[in-house]
């Protein structure tokens, strides 16, 4: 165990910050750090908060974090902002909204940029959550702009996902297309004092009724829906005996005035209870670890193969050969993978 890990476990803030930096940079040694930290995790509640830019995520997270702190719980927040695809630089501004927790060290707030080049942002987020969990945070909030697969992956690191919808964005199609309806466990119509909030709530409710599975399992297709907890659960165990389904509540908040924050926390707590009651928390954890193992395997195998390709003189001469019609992509892949297959076959005996 390195000094850094020991310092983190001992509760040193700068060590936690440095570990997250190493995770972000994929610095040498970060894998060992995560390995060492893993056994100290599993106690935190992880909450994902997503929604379009300007929906009020940061402001709501600030109030939520402050309320948790009042209850005596420690909080970690990871806020992910986009970075420029051109310079790689970014201005990470979510911190500006964290006014309610100013100077409070037990409220650990960290901005992360979606650095395109490193890929695997969801992996980095998962690892950062591991660090916060091992540090001993009671509640961990992951906040991200809700657009695209990347975000959906990130948000899956959470036990409970809250989706923020600003009023007036309520064009039915707009809400449906992001695929965001499927991942939400709790929906929040923030800025509920604005015109159109009622209409947005109404539309959301209609759409969610269309989504949620009905308990009567005789209905055609209903069993699939019931098992579909915002996630592709096709590879998980049979869960038919759990007849209870979760109907995502819609909460109205005015985050900047702190209105509705208690309701939101209640909704989060209810979902947490539901996860425990139905045993889904464990199921989710299993799925998450399975997904993480798959992702890491893919990344590492990929790296291995890139090295192998380079050793064989890079991909270019294969491309040349394919263009000249001397060979084809499938044959190339078979050729590159042949030694690996042989090696595995030998080991198996």
């Amino acid at each position, binding site marked *: 165990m*390195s000094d*850094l890990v020991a310092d983190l476990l001992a509760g*040193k*803030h*700068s060590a936690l*910050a*440095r570990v*997250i*930096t190493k995770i*972000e*940079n994929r*610095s*040498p*040694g970060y894998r060992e750090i995560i390995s060492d930290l893993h056994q100290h995790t599993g106690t935190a509640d992880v909450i994902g908060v997503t929604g379009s830019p300007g929906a009020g995520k940061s402001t709501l997270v600030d109030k939520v974090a402050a309320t948790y702190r009042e209850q005596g719980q420690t909080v970690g927040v990871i806020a992910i902002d986009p*970075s*420029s695809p051109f*310079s*790689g*630089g*970014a*201005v*990470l*501004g979510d*911190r*500006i909204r964290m*006014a309610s927790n*100013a*100077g*409070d*060290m037990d409220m*650990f*707030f*960290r*901005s992360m*940029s979606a*650095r395109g080049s490193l890929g695997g942002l969801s992996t980095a987020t998962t690892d950062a959550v591991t660090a916060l969990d091992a540090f001993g945070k009671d509640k961990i909030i992951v906040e991200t702009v809700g657009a695209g697969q990347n975000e959906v992956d990130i948000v899956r690191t959470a036990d409970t996902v809250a989706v923020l919808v600003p009023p007036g964005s309520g064009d039915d199609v707009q809400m449906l297309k992001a695929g965001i309806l499927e991942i939400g466990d709790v929906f929040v119509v923030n800025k509920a004092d604005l015109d159109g909030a009622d209409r947005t709530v109404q539309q959301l409710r209609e759409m969610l009724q269309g989504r949620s599975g009905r308990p009567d399992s005789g209905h055609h297709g209903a069993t699939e829906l019931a098992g579909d907890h915002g996630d592709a659960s096709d590879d998980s165990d049979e869960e038919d005996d759990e007849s209870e389904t979760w109907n995502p509540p819609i909460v109205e908040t005015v985050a900047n005035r702190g209105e509705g924050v208690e309701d939101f926390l209640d909704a989060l707590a209810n979902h947490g209870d539901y996860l425990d009651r139905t045993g889904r928390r464990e199921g989710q954890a299993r799925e998450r670890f399975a997904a993480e193992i798959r992702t890491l395997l893919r990344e590492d195998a990929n790296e291995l193969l890139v090295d192998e390709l380079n050793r064989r003189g890079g991909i270019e001469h294969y491309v040349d050969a394919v263009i000249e019609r001397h060979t084809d992509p499938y044959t190339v892949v078979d050729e590159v993978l042949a030694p690996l297959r042989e090696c595995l076959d030998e080991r198996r005996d």
Partner: protein
Amino acid sequence: MSVEQEQTERTIRCLVAKVGLDGHDRGAHVIARALRDAGFEVIYSGLHRAPDEVVQAAVQEDVDVVGISILSGAHNTLVPKILDGLKEYDAFDDRLILVGGIVPDDDQDELRDLGVDEIFGPGASMEEMIDYIHENAPER
């Protein structure tokens, strides 16, 4: 922290902080944008931060550069508080501390003695600052 060889061009993180009652952040915005365009990750604090908050941000965000913008003339009170806070959380040694604003020569010497690495006054160019950061960003 142990040996870090073959560290490829890591992303430098900078905090741009406005401390105290000074409400002029036009310059801080311009600087934040210039640093972003130079490929840095910039965490902007927002206006009217207390020294505590700047320390909290600098520690938690694990920035390489702490940029403190003060135009109110209160640098002699505010900067030492920030430096003390950073030392308290063991986040002083491997960080570049920069001050921007109007700082009289006598005060400059004093701030440098306390641990400020560089002071950029009126007329300092963006290139100057970015080059300085590239050259002096701490090894980690």
